[in-house]
């Protein structure tokens, strides 16, 4: 039997000092020379990715040229704003608070979304808490269809499978949150002649976990090549507050507590990182099964899910496509039939 090399968690170890120095140097070059901007604006959520990116920007451009936007809305987690402030204070950067609830109300974000939810839960009102969930990936080859879990003010919990049109209506409405935040980031970047810095890690970027022209939009994405495990390592190295390092990644989009792996990813990030690493290196499921504590069959399901998400979200990564060549504009290519 062929021996399969094991992928251990050590595979994701990095030299934090070296990685940080390389990012800082390249970031300074890209923003200063390529983009011709004089600093960085970014949204700071109090999560690990935006915290690490903010710290790297402060190193690259100086604290005085890094502006963090705190953009809570009425459904943000209770700790989101405080964590953002704590991180900004630890790094020593300027913050601008933009409460986005009035913009979201004016755009009909909550109303459109609640109308869509009422299509499957007629008694749903603004007092209910809710979230969208996927069934577990492991142990089954069944398709994973989104369901809504809603809890009435009296504590009664209802679960219902979402029809496609309802699911799309809910996503389209909640995407206002990411898009309004990005609009404000570009407003401040325009005002200051700074670049907008995006904060996705490799898992999010690769697997399309972002809103097009929302959190997916940015001038530069400094940590998109780093696995989330590596972002945490870098966070500890850069002195990100313990409260952020210890926080479970959330979507901070729905009113019931929701982890990212419940909504989108198939596994907690530590395990998914290792599976993604193995898959990216064309290693078989057996190579990582022991390290992540799963059967090879379940790892194969994870690999399959990774590929399926890449296919499904390819459109999110694409720029506007042209139908004929414009060679005078670098970086553009026409699509031919």
């Amino acid at each position, binding site marked *: 039997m062929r021996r399969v090399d094991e992928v251990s968690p050590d595979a994701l170890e990095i030299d934090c000092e070296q990685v940080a120095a390389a990012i800082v140097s390249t970031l300074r070059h890209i923003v200063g020379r390529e983009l011709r901007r004089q600093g960085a604006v970014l949204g700071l959520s109090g999560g690990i990715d935006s915290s690490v990116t903010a710290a790297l920007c402060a190193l690259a451009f100086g604290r005085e040229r890094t502006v963090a936007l705190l953009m809570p809305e009425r459904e943000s987690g209770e700790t989101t704003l405080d964590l953002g402030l704590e991180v900004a204070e630890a790094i020593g950067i300027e913050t601008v608070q933009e409460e986005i609830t009035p913009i979201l109300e004016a755009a009909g974000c909550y109303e459109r979304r609640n109308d869509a939810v009422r299509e499957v839960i007629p008694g749903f009102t603004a007092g209910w808490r809710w979230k969208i969930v996927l069934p577990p990936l492991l142990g089954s080859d069944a398709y994973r269809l989104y369901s809504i879990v809603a809890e009435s003010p009296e504590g009664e919990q209802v679960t219902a499978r979402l029809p496609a*049109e309802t699911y799309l209506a809910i996503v389209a409405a909640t995407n206002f949150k990411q898009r309004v935040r990005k609009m404000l980031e570009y407003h401040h970047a325009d005002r200051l002649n700074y670049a907008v810095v995006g904060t996705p890690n490799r898992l999010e970027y690769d697997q399309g976990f972002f809103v097009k022209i929302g959190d997916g939009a940015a001038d530069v994405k400094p940590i998109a090549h780093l696995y989330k495990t590596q972002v945490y390592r870098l966070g500890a190295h850069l002195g990100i507050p313990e409260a952020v390092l210890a926080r479970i990644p959330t979507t901070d989009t729905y009113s019931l507590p929701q982890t990212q792996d419940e909504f989108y990813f198939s596994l907690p990030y530590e395990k998914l990182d290792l599976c993604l690493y193995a898959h990216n290196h064309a290693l078989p499921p057996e190579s990582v099964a022991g390290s992540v504590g799963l059967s090879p069959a379940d790892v194969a399901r994870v690999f399959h899910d990774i590929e399926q998400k890449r296919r499904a979200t390819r459109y999110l990564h694409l720029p506007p496509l042209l139908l004929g060549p414009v060679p005078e504009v670098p970086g553009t290519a026409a699509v031919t039939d």
Partner: protein
Amino acid sequence: MENFLLGDDLRTLPGDASLIEAGIIDSTGVLELVGFLERTYGLRIADHELVPENLDSIDRVVRFVESKRSASASG
């Protein structure tokens, strides 16, 4: 299928081709397909029936719908 194949020619898709692997449908597409089958044929598709064996090719969908309809007719 017209929704999923906008810009493609339906005649080029073999009946046994995997709709997921061929990139014809994604997870939202499965939601759409299930909703379409339930509405059009008056079916109720249970969670345990949401498997590739029933839905991941045109031939499989045809077989699945026929078996559901004959089961409900005889029941």
